[in-house]
């Protein structure tokens, strides 16, 4: 396979037909959607739309088959079995699912380990769980480069829940070190893979973790869907989270018997079209030349890092080099508020994210209220980085 950045970008209709270039550097919030995903969703909604697993008519059969195919595609992207891959309403919903299902096994004195750089979606559910159960939260430190510092865990640690890739610093977690320490005390490990999944297929079971959550809309799929890989033994052992249709094997006046497999955690009608879109995204992504894309993304990241290093007053909140880092670059521009920076850069066609990025404890760690973030995806090109620095120069001129 050869790599052609422009050809890849052309697969995303949102970039077509514009008078001026859209330098979309906010993929960490929502990635754009390729034609393969849009076509899959449109095909479903226009020719196969029906509910799944509950009808015998032809459309219901077709919808059910499409939904199962989508599950298989997402599972394959995660190198996981279909029967261990659960569709959710998003990454946040996936983590909340674990917080309730696995959380039901926790009690006072048990410890949950998180870190100071977690997205609120991988922090607040554990704070709520601690309040419900009497379990305690322990925070791993974050170093000056925005990396989680592995540590030994206490014997009472039951779960370690960490971001695989920081949505602020772009630092990639030292998973082997974390897993080794967790296994030493018999703790389960959950990884929030929202920022990792958009950058290529992965082997979630091979990481040695127990739960892996991803977001649909950050992985080039529609909003309102996500996925959770969970070991079969946990699917079997943990109680369901939400109750309702589809998650049961049998219901009587006295009670219910839960379904087996992923259905146990998919109460009600799932986001069928969005899930089919996520399946299409995973299938499309799986066919790309990821070594070439990774090299491309990292080269653009290096341009961002080098350029920001030359801007007086700019401070990158993450690794200064490319080792163990994803193409997410957040920075503080002294004397300028992130929203003002983003607002001015928007006039250059540059879409950025400014604020705390749902990671307030991390910004407190850096003694900041917020930061400005450029998050790249496979459709970014050098022209986007050029516009970024044009806009940043103007923001600096106006604001500082």
């Amino acid at each position: 396979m050869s790599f052609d950045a422009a050809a890849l970008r052309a697969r995303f209709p949102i970039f077509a037909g514009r008078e001026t270039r859209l330098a979309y550097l906010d993929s960490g919030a929502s990635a754009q959607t390729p034609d393969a995903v849009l076509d899959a969703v449109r095909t479903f909604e226009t020719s196969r739309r029906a509910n799944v697993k509950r009808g015998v008519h032809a459309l219901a059969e077709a919808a059910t088959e499409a939904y199962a195919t989508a599950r298989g595609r997402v599972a394959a992207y995660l190198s996981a079995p279909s029967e261990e891959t659960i569709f959710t309403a998003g990454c946040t919903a996936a983590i909340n699912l674990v917080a309730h299902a696995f959380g039901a096994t926790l009690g006072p004195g048990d410890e949950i380990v998180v870190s100071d750089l977690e997205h609120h979606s991988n922090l607040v559910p554990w704070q709520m769980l601690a309040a419900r159960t009497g379990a305690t939260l322990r925070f791993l430190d974050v170093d000056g480069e925005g990396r989680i510092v592995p540590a030994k865990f206490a014997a009472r640690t039951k779960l370690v829940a960490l971001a695989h890739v920081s949505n602020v610093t772009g630092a990639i977690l030292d998973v082997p070190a974390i897993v080794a320490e967790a296994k030493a005390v018999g703790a389960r490990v959950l990884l929030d893979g929202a920022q990792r999944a958009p950058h290529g297929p992965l082997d979630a079971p091979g990481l040695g973790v127990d739960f892996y959550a991803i977001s649909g809309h950050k992985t080039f799929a529609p909003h309102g869907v996500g996925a959770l890989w969970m070991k079969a033994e946990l699917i079997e052992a943990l109680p369901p989270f939400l109750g309702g249709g589809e998650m049961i094997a049998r219901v009587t006046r006295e009670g219910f018997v839960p379904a087996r497999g992923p259905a146990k955690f998919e109460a009600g009608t799932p986001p069928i079209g969005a899930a089919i879109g996520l399946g299409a995204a995973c299938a499309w992504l799986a066919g790309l030349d990821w070594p070439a894309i990774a090299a491309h993304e990292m080269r653009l990241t290096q341009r961002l890092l080098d350029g920001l290093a030359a801007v007086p007053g700019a401070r990158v909140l993450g690794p200064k080099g490319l080792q163990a880092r994803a193409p997410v670059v957040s920075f503080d521009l002294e004397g300028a508020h992130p929203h003002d920076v983003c607002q001015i850069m928007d006039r250059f066609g540059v879409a950025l994210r400014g604020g705390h990025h749902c990671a307030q404890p991390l910004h407190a760690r850096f003694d900041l209220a917020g930061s400005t973030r450029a998050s790249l995806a496979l459709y970014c090109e050098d022209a986007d980085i050029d516009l970024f620095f044009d806009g940043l120069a103007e923001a600096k001129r106006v604001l500082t």
Partner: protein
Amino acid sequence: MSDALYHEALMALAKDPAHAAPLGPADGVTVDNPLCGDRVTLAGRIADGKFVDIRHKVRGCALCQAAAAALARALEGRPVAALAAAESDLETALAGGAPPAPWAAFGPVARHKSRFDCVRLPFSAVKRLVSGT
């Protein structure tokens, strides 16, 4: 490239030191914008029905800073009713109207609805000061 939103008059307000002060949380009321983490701390008192010794500390964007500065100037030494008048002028600007200075400076914000909360945050702080909550 010029930037209509961050024009000279607005940036002058944002950098206006007249009522800015290094306040701590215990010095006055503090309000937050949960979406962006911006924070306004406002101190002052009401004597004989008038705002006295209004000071603010803004950890926020230029729009929030400008609104805090404009509001402090609009209130200092004036009756409590001046708050409603100032708010009316700001809302006129946000609706695309033409209020008097200094609120005319916020006219371009009307095209950026996502920034309305930035300029409204100082008003929330003053309201809490007035209500004593």
